């Protein structure tokens, strides 16, 4: 099973190569993968519906508990079948939709990678493994939305989707880590075993909130829903696959997976039912205002996702079962409608409802597919959508406000379904819109297959679908009493009458759609305060702020950089000193002041006088001489404190420096007066501050000198081991000989650099 899940990665990365070899026939190979996977998972179906859980483990990073642990149970099975079935159809559809696109190979790379990641999410048992695949879907979704990379809208939307879902993913990660810390388990199986500990744990609520943020961003719940309509900038196969059938359901999957672990406290019901119902209303209300087919579908998807979350929130056996049926039904009909929308866009060059009339004239198969899907969406009798809607009403029947929301969504679904099938394809018109080109088989076959699947699933609901759903139920509801059998016909119950009423009211709503659209123009100004606008404003502010900040920090002046470095360094020192304050006692060093010889005073006075003179002088030669004076004084100091070798080096080097200086003096700039008065005072202040901090540090170190073991070691080992009496020399040439070699290399490199700079003649084009 591990192999089956990970083989997609391999396929993904050979896709561009295969495209180079085979051209557009790459689609055949890429479609075979999901087909093979679908058959493989179907072959596991009998075992899984029996209640067996298939587990595959592979140790990866044992110490961090990050392992490739997969489990295939009833809940996963529904999802893997949906993902691979859709994957197969989308791969075929995409080859027709993107025919002639030079980047087709890359498209298949992204799409296959996404499919693998999605399979990983729904089968992962290890929570880190889940997170990995979760983020991989965000990244591949980013690449797919921005596939038309010359379109600015696509790029912006891709960014938005990545930031929202990727950010949510990080929140989810934090939540999962909290859960695993609280329980000590790293797999869902383990978390489930520990759920009693978790419910009373202090970090339950933070973990809950973080996980909810992760799921809600992924599944486009209010207030994170705004990325989904924008993601419609993606090519339509992507919208159908990622943004209606699979990726946006990942959040639902995780909620369902975690339902047995987290659903104990009331906060589960209020959060999920609340957010879900707001999202459902929002999706329904906004969907009727649009004329772009993809926008309409996007908002109805948001509405449907809201309903799914709401039903998860109710968490009764009936609600969960209804949720699963609705999830499958929605994937089938919404996927179909997206594919239909893509085909219309491809053939007509527009997706705007008001410009499309009587399409059934030229595209009968597409019309049939759309109608099948629309009937399921509207919840008409033999379709799976009907069963889903019945169960939705049944589950919410005792809670009036939830029932109201479910009915409202039902109404809108009916109206939209009519709009997308009857109005687009079959309503008679004097001027049918002529297609730009004929419909190719790759564009109508996949939606037709999906549409028929929705019908078949409805007709045969008590056999295979029912077993699948019951298998999934076992994973979500611990003791599930099979009270509600999945069947097409339940008799003339109140729910049935409600369902009929919804259809009738929905038809009247459809009649009013044009008026609603005209009215809704007035609502446009509300969008200025919506989350999408907020996101863009925040994004712009962030960019602007970053730009201003960087322009200030990296302003191109060497001085500013040095000032920042120095002030930061001093700040760090001061923080450390403030944190552990220590008193300096001057008594001991002050006593040593009495022993100070006169010549030492003279030396210090000389250096300080020289420095002050250096600040004032305007002669280059004088300043070089003064520099030399300071250097030689330092050498004298070294002699005084028992470092003759250092003193000798210092003398040599100082002499060399002065020589180089004098040699190049005539080529160096003469003094001119450059400073501003104000700047000058600022620099003086900073310089004095820095000097003071350094002085303080030295006094501090002197006050608490530590004996180093190195001194004793080298003292003892110098003669015994290296047979040298000058310890400093022994260290340099013997113990740390390699370091000295490095030092020599540095000098050699500097010498080469100097030679090159001197010989380089820019006047003659950079050559000597």
């Amino acid at each position: 099973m591990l192999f089956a899940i990970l083989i997609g990665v391999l396929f993904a990365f050979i896709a561009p190569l295969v495209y180079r070899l085979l051209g557009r026939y790459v689609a055949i190979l890429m479609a075979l993968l999901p087909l093979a996977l679908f058959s493989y998972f179907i072959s596991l179906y009998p075992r899984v519906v029996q209640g067996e859980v298939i587990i595959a483990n592979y140790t990866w990073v044992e110490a961090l508990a990050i392992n490739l642990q997969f489990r295939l149970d009833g809940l996963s099975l529904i999802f893997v079948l949906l993902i691979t079935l859709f994957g197969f159809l989308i791969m075929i559809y995409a080859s027709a939709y993107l025919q002639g696109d030079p980047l087709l190979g890359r498209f298949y790379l992204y799409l296959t990678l996404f499919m693998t990641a999605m399979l990983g999410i729904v089968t992962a048992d290890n929570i880190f493994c889940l997170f990995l695949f979760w983020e991989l879907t965000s990244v591949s979704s980013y690449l797919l939305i921005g596939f038309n990379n010359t379109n600015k809208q696509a790029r912006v939307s891709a960014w938005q989707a990545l930031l929202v879902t990727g950010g949510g993913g990080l929140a989810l990660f934090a939540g999962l880590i909290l859960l695993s810390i609280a329980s000590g388990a790293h797999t869902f199986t383990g978390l489930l075993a520990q759920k009693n500990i978790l419910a009373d744990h202090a970090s339950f609520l933070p973990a809950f909130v973080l996980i909810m943020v992760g799921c809600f961003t992924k599944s486009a719940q209010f207030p994170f829903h705004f990325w989904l309509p924008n993601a419609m900038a993606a090519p339509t196969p992507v919208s159908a696959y990622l943004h209606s059938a699979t990726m946006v359901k990942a959040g639902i999957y995780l909620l369902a997976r975690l339902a047995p672990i987290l659903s104990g406290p009331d906060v589960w019901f209020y959060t999920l039912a609340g957010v879900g119902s707001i999202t459902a209303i929002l999706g329904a209300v906004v969907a009727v205002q649009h004329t772009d087919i993809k926008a309409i579908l996007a908002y109805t998807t948001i509405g449907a996702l809201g309903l799914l979350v709401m039903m998860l929130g109710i968490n009764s056996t009936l609600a969960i079962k209804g949720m699963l049926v609705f999830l499958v039904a929605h994937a089938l009909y919404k996927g179909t409608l997206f594919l239909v929308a893509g085909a219309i866009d491809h053939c007509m060059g527009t997706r705007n409802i008001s410009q499309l009339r009587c399409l059934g004239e030229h595209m009968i198969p597409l019309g049939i597919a759309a109608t099948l899907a629309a009937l399921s969406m509207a919840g008409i009798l033999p379709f799976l959508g009907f069963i889903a809607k019945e169960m939705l009403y049944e589950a919410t029947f005792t809670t009036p406000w939830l029932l109201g929301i479910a009915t409202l969504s039902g109404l809108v679904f009916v109206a939209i379904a009519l709009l997308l099938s009857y109005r687009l394809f079959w309503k008679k018109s004097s001027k049918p819109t002529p297609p730009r080109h004929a419909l190719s088989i790759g564009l109508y076959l996949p939606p037709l297959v999906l549409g028929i699947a929705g019908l078949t699933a409805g007709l045969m609901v008590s056999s295979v679908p029912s077993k699948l759903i019951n298998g999934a139920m076992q994973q979500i509801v611990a003791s599930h009493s099979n009270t509600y059998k999945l069947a097409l016909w339940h008799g003339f119950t109140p729910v049935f009458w409600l369902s009929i009423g919804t259809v009738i009211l929905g038809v009247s709503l459809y009649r009013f759609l044009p008026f609603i659209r005209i009215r809704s123009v007035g609502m446009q100004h509300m969008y200025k305060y919506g989350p999408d606008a907020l996101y863009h404003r925040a994004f712009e502010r962030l960019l602007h702020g970053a730009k201003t900040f960087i322009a200030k920090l990296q302003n191109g002046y060497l001085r500013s950089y040095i000032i920042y470095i120095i002030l930061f360094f001093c700040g760090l020192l001061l923080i450390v000193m403030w944190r552990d304050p220590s008193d300096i006692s001057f008594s001991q060093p002050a006593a040593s002041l009495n022993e100070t010889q006169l010549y030492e005073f003279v030396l210090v006075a000389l250096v300080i006088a020289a420095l002050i003179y250096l600040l004032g002088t305007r002669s280059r030669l004088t300043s070089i001489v003064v520099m030399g004076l300071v250097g030689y004084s330092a050498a004298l100091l070294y002699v005084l404190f028992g470092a003759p070798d250092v003193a000798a080096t210092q003398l040599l080097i100082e002499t060399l420096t002065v020589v180089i200086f004098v040699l190049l003096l005539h080529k160096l700039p003469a003094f001119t007066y450059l400073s501003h008065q104000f700047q000058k005072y600022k620099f003086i202040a900073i310089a004095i501050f820095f000097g003071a901090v350094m002085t303080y540090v030295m006094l501090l170190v002197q006050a608490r000198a530590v004996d180093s073991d190195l001194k004793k070691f080298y003292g003892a080992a110098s003669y015994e081991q290296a047979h040298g009496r000058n310890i400093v020399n022994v260290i340099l040439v013997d113990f740390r000989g390699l370091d000295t070699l490095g030092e020599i290399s540095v000098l050699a490199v500097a010498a080469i650099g100097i030679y090159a700079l001197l010989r380089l003649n820019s006047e003659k084009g950079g050559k000597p």
Partner: protein
Amino acid sequence: MDLLMPFMIGTLFSVSLYLILHRHLFKLILGLILFGLATNLFLFIVGGLTRGSTAIIREQETIPKEPYADPVPQALLLTAIVIGFGIQAFAIVLIRRVYQTFKSNNLNDLRGDRGPEKKKH
């Protein structure tokens, strides 16, 4: 003397930083050299001062007699001084080249967006 040294080196740091912050190229070199000197002395002080006695083992002895200067900071210093010299020499030549190319002694003129026009390439 132990008390005087930190103040002297602090002054050295202040002056060198002020010279580095100066816009003039020549003063920048002076500042760099002084800063290196100050850092070396700083290292020396922090390593601990021992008056008079060098870290040399006398004849007929196998280990040095206390008190003797800590040899480790001295070894470090030797390396630091030599490498510092490499950097100084390179900086002097580089600044000379910069001055020749840009015909300016003002650091503020050297920002990328205000550089001289590209010459015959």
